[in-house]
């Protein structure tokens, strides 16, 4: 099986139903994508597949074999991702930071699909959990990134 991740091709030999998360983390050593719940509850494992946010902890790797996968490792290679990261820094969003890879990629996916989201659009897209309670800063950062996008 071959995966396309951040523009590079990676041959992988794993059981086809292995969650993408663990292929990224253990097989390919890309640990920016986090394990939180394994059950699509928290969103810490969010990556983009063909621009759409997916929960990699419940995504069988075979189902994204033909997709363009983008992970947090490449977020600043993307012009929208750059703006999101800049807004995250401006608003000093992260606390512990563990959920933030998924938050940043969720915001990047939103702004790639919808350059000028309403607050309702932001609320619909930004549903990942944050135990530190950075939600308000996340919303403010997404708004800023949208304004500069």
């Amino acid at each position, binding site marked *: 099986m071959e995966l396309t991740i951040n523009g590079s091709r990676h041959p992988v030999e794993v059981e086809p139903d292995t969650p993408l998360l663990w292929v990224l983390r253990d097989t390919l050593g890309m640990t920016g994508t*986090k394990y939180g719940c394994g059950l699509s509850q928290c969103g810490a494992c969010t990556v983009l597949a063909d621009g759409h946010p997916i929960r990699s902890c419940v995504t069988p790797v075979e189902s994204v074999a033909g997709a363009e996968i983008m992970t947090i490792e490449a*977020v600043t290679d993307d012009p929208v991702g750059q703006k999101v990261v800049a807004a995250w*820094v401006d608003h000093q969003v992260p606390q512990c930071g563990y959920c933030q890879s998924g938050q940043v990629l969720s915001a990047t996916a939103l702004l790639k699909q919808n350059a000028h989201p309403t607050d309702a659009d932001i609320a619909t897209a930004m549903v990942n959990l*944050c135990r530190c309670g950075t939600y308000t800063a996340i919303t403010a950062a997404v708004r800023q990134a949208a304004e500069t996008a």
Partner: protein
Amino acid sequence: MTDQSPLGSGPPGRQKAGHRNAGHRDGSILKLSRRGFLGASAGALVLGVALPGRGPAQAQEAEEPAIEPGTRVSAFLEIRPDGSVLFRTPFIEGGQGVFTALPQVVGEELDVDPAHFTVECAPPGPDYLLFDGIRFTGGSMSVRRSYDRMRTLGASARHMLLQAAATRLDVPFAELSTEPGRVVHAASGRSLAYGDVAEAAASLPLPDPADLTLRARADFRWIGASVSRLDIPDKATGKAQFAIDLSLDDMLHGAVQHAPRLRMEPGAIANEAQVRDMPGVHSIHRLPGAVGVLADSWWRAHRAAETLQIDWTEAEPGADHAMPADFSSEERTATLSAAPGEGIAFEANGDVRAALDSAATVVEATYTAPYLAHAQLEPPSALVRWNDDGTLEMWVPNQAPEMFQGAAAKAAGIAPEKVIIHSPMLGGFFGRHFIYDTANPFPQAIPMAKAAGRPVKLIWSREQEFLRDAVRPLGVARFRAGLDENGLPVALDAVAVGEGPMGRWFGRKPDTADSSAVEGLSGKPYAIPNRRVAHLPIDDPAIIGFWRSVGHSMNDFFSETFLDEMADAGGQDPYALRLRLLEDNARLTTLLKAVAELSGGWKRGPFTADDGRRRARGVAMASPFGSEVATIAEVSIADGRVRVHDVWVAIDPGRIVNPAIIEAQVTGAVAIGLSATLLEEVVYKDGVPQARNYDGYPILPPDQMPTVHVRIVESGAPMGGIGEPGVPGVPPSVANAVAALTGRRVRSLPLSRTRFEGAA
């Protein structure tokens, strides 16, 4: 107000001795030069991950003079040739901002912009035992209890750099000054970068503290400023590494299946051979209360561990905290509520009994709060390697390196100085990463790594974590209050029933109350002439732990909500009553008025908001961890559920270091406090916690986050804590608002248990 115990609410250590192994060989002071750091870098190259170095503790010998913690510059600071500073902090970063706040404090006196600091958590060692001979990150203590020593440390290092520069430039010491990162000789116009004199400075003795002049507050550039957090860029780009992200050459991945109830032990495994043949599986390990699987990836180890069909045998008679098969949180609540006795007094003023007997009105109520899970997003893990020299090296999320070193030594059967502890940043902690025996993965990883002869990274799945987390205790408080004929409180009797985490882990003397069981009932500032606060200890069958704001997380809910009940019974407005009971306390009067002003003036309601819905507000005060906090919440009811719109918090931590971090911490504290108020409870049935993931244990989602307004009041009082104090005021302010809106006084959490049908 001060802490309820001399140690506050973080745990004291259990090992005051046993660390005499540290101390620099030649007794000189700034010995590190760059050796330690370069050594760490070389190690990192070998390992392929960025890891903290072994640090001074492992390189030292026994017969050294006693070390005064927090004084030896070399143990903390390393100034590199490029002028950047490596700072080994005693405390770990887990979101609370300590990796930025302490560089602000040290940098202020060292005269280096905090932005030029690189920060890592210091290894075990006597230099870092800043809390009366122990160290931990907790109790909201890091900054307030190291502030003076860290300033002096920065000033000492600056003094040594000045001395080295005086020699180099051949000018009198007194003619030199500094500007950020440079020593300046104004008379000749010459200057030297810190990096150019750091090595020479390193060979100088520590200056006499009497020779040091600290900066005047008026001249502070970084202390008191909203300096950007040093860890944010890496956390916004996925580069920050947590324990779970680290790996070692030749490492095996580990997963476990825990016994459903604590102290059950693994018996026969029906499908052991089949599981051993699953892809990638290396070995299966019987462990105390668990079976572990090692494999070539975590997913394979996890799937194998979940597949195991284990015959769990009942606990051995007398096993410590064996979980009974019939235990339930519901029954525990009933037991505590009905337990007879007045408890052991913790605070007593006046004659409560007589005052109650003669009171015009007596108010009574019993309150309950559930077990809570930490639910930090990073699951616990342990990366463990047995080295060829007989040392054991561990990378573990932890809030107390020396305590983990001691516990790991015990688990491994080796001396503590043979255990090397690395402390990566924490993906949330909230009290999760203390030593809790059965709630820590490393005692499982150590024997598995030994048996396999290879490094092991053990990660607990979310389900296994929910099964073994050390939960916030379930608690009950019983109140009786007496009011006079004017409706004013004259007597208050409060009894906390249950067990506190301090007593559990550090011992409670017989006939002594546990401060962590009563804090938040005790330490209240109101002028009520006859008061008694007591603890009725009843041991908890569950494994209990410290949870953000510890006893305050429930007790301020109990006491501040009951205060509103007293106000209602006496026909008093709850805000006006608090002001009256605080009229002799200028600091708290100012604070209470500040939160009212922040919210646009006190109004209880119910009132009709701009959206046409009925709303009301509640107020609460708390005195946790050396800080003072006043909170107002505004709520409405939608579909029978409580909706919290705004929370206003005025916090007086005395003095501050970074207002932006304080605002972020208070906002986050409101989130977790509201999560506990509205949603969270660990329910035990048949001895087993029912929820194993966030689907069964919801935590506050983004769409329930209120708007949080924070005002910092810097009264100049001794510095208080920041990480926890925002939590305790949230549950009572919300519950008081709900009572004002609905007329229903809810005395148990979470509020999601109650449907407010037809209300408002």
